[in-house]
C-alpha cells in the first residue's frame, strides 16, 4: 500500500508554493521529506494528508484517490500529526487521544477504549494519561498527538517535524517508534529538517527545494554530497558510525 502523488500544484494567493510535484512513498517504509526552510514541506504534507486540496494533481493511497474517499473513511486510513499545534483546551491526555476514535464513532456510540489504551501504551504516554494536555512539556505533547494519530488505526501516517521540541534521547525514541510501526506494515512519511536523523532512520527520502522535487529514492543513494551541496549550499562528508556501522553525515561550510 504505497502513497503516490502526481503533478501536485499548490498556490497561495498568486504565489506558487508547490510546482508539479510527483512523489511516492513505498508501502511499509519510513520515508523522510527533507528540504531547506520554505521549500514547501508542510504545504505538500497537508495535501498528501488530503487535508488541503491542491490546485491540480492527484493523491492516491493503495490505488484509491484520497480526495475522492469520503472524509470519515479517509480518516480511518490516513492520520496526520501537525507541527506546533496550539490549543487552550483543558482536555485530559486520554480525552485528546480519544479524539482519534472520532472517525470510527457513530453519533450515539462511544469510542473503543482498547485502541486508545494501546496508543497510550505504544507512545509511552499512559503514565500521564489523566493529566491535563495543556500542562505537558512540548515533547510530551508531541507524543500525545502521535498517540491520537495512532488511535485512528491508520495505514498511512504523515508527520510534520515530529522531532521538534524533543531532546536527543526522545528524538531517537520517536524515530525508532516510527521504524517499529512501519515494520508492522504502516506506511510512514515524516518531514524532517534534521538531515542526520533522516540519513540514519529513513529508508527513502524525498528532497524538496523551492516547491520542486529535486531528488527522491533510497536514502544512501539520494542524500549524496553533490546533492546536499547543490540544495543546501554546504559541504557534506559521509562517515561511518563506529558503533552502529550506519551512515553519518558531517557538514562544513563551503569555502
Amino acid at each position, binding site marked *: 500500500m504505497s502513497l503516490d502523488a502526481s503533478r501536485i500544484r499548490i498556490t497561495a494567493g498568486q504565489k506558487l508554493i508547490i510546482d508539479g510535484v510527483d512523489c511516492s512513498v513505498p508501502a511499509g517504509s519510513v520515508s523522510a521529506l527533507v528540504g531547506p526552510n520554505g521549500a514547501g514541506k508542510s504545504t505538500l504534507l497537508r495535501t498528501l494528508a488530503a487535508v488541503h486540496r491542491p490546485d491540480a494533481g492527484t493523491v492516491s493511497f493503495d490505488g484509491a484517490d484520497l480526495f475522492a474517499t469520503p*472524509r*470519515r473513511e479517509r480518516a480511518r486510513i*490516513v492520520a*496526520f500529526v*501537525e507541527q506546533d*499545534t496550539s490549543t487552550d483546551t*483543558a482536555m485530559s491526555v486520554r*480525552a485528546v487521544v480519544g479524539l482519534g476514535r*472520532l472517525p470510527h464513532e457513530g453519533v450515539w456510540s462511544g469510542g473503543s477504549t482498547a485502541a486508545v489504551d494501546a496508543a497510550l501504551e505504544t507512545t509511552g504516554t499512559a503514565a500521564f494519561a489523566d493529566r491535563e494536555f495543556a500542562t505537558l512539556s512540548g515533547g510530551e505533547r508531541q507524543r500525545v498527538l502521535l498517540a491520537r494519530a495512532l488511535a485512528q488505526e491508520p495505514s498511512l501516517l504523515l508527520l510534520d517535524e515530529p522531532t521538534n521540541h524533543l531532546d536527543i534521547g526522545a528524538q531517537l525514541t520517536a524515530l525508532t517508534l516510527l521504524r517499529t510501526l512501519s515494520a508492522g506494515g504502516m506506511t510512514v512519511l515524516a518531514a524532517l529538517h534534521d538531515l542526520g536523523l533522516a540519513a540514519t532512520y529513513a529508508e527513502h527520502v524525498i528532497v524538496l527545494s523551492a516547491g520542486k522535487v529535486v531528488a527522491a529514492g533510497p536514502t544512501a543513494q539520494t542524500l549524496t554530497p553533490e546533492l546536499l551541496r547543490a540544495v543546501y549550499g554546504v559541504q557534506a562528508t559521509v562517515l561511518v558510525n563506529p558503533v552502529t556501522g550506519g551512515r553519518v553525515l558531517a557538514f562544513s561550510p563551503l569555502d
Partner: protein
Amino acid sequence: MRSRPVLVGAALGAALLLSIVVAVTIGPANITFGEVWGSIGSHLGLGNSPLPVLRDGIVWELRLPRVLTAAAVGAGLAIAGAVMQAITRNPLADPYLLGLSSGASLGAVSVVLLGASVVLPLAAFLGAMVALLLTLLLASSLGAITPTRTVLAGLAVSSLASAITSLIIFWTATGDSYREILGWLLGSLAGARWPAVAIAVVALVVAGIPIMLTGRVLDAFAFGDVSAAALGINVPATRWGLLAATALLTGAMVSVSGSIGFVGLILPHGVRLLVGPAHRALLPLSALVGAIFLLWADTAARSLFDPRELPVGIVTAIIGAPLFAFLLGRRRSAT
C-alpha cells in the same frame, strides 16, 4: 469519570424544576404557593382555580409564561455561547459580544414596525446572521482573527445595530419609545406571554437539540481546522452550519427577550470548571445552568425593586461584566 456529568445533570435538572415551581409563586400580587399551583393545576385540567379571574390571570397569563420563557431563553443563549466559543476557538465568544444579539434586535424591530410579527423570529435570525458575518469580515480584515480583534469588531457592529434600532423606534414609536428601546437593547422579559414560550421552546428543539448532538465534533475543533479535517470532519460545512444554527437560536431568543448579555459568555466557562471541557456534557449542562440563571435573574429583575421593574439585562450585566473582566485578565496571564 463518566458518571459525574450525569450526576451533575440530574442535580441541575431537579434544581431547574424546583426553580420553576418556586419562581412562579414570587411576585408582588401576594398570592400564596398553594393558590398559585391550584390555579396552574386548574388550567392543566385538575380541579378549579382557587383564585378570582383577575388574579388567576396573573399566574397563568403573566407569571408562568414569563418564567418558562426566561428558562428557555437562558438555555438557548448558554448553548449559543458554548458553541461559538468552540467553533471560533475564542473563549470570549458570545452572541452578545459578537453583535448577533444587537443584529437580531434590529431585524426584529424592523419587522415589528411593518406589523409582520409572525416572521419576527425569522427577521431576528437574518439580523443575527448578517451581524455575525459583518463581525467576522471586519475581524479578518484586521489581520489574523484573534479573540480580542473579534470582540472589538463585534463591538463596532453591535454599536451600529443598536443605534439603528434606537433610531427606528424613535422615528416611528407611538407610545413610550424610551421604554421600548431599553427593552430591546438591555433585554426584558416583561412582555413574555404564551407565544413567546412557544417561539423559545421551538427554537430550542429545532436548533438546540441538533447542536447538542455535535458535541464530539466540537471537541475536535480545540486543535484547529487542520486537526479537525484530519479527523474526518468537514470543517467549513460544520463551522457554517453550526454558526447558522447559533444565529437561529439567538435570533429566536432575542425576538422574545431583546438582547440579554453575558449569559452565553459566562455560564459555559462555569460549567467547564465543574465537569471539564468535553462538549457532549458541556452543551446540555450549560443549557440547564443558563435556564436556572436567567430564571432567577428575571425573578430578581421583576421583584427586587417592586413596584418598579428592571430590564433583566441589567441584572445579567451586573453579574456578568466583572466575570468578563476576570476572563480577560486570565487570558492575559495565559499568553
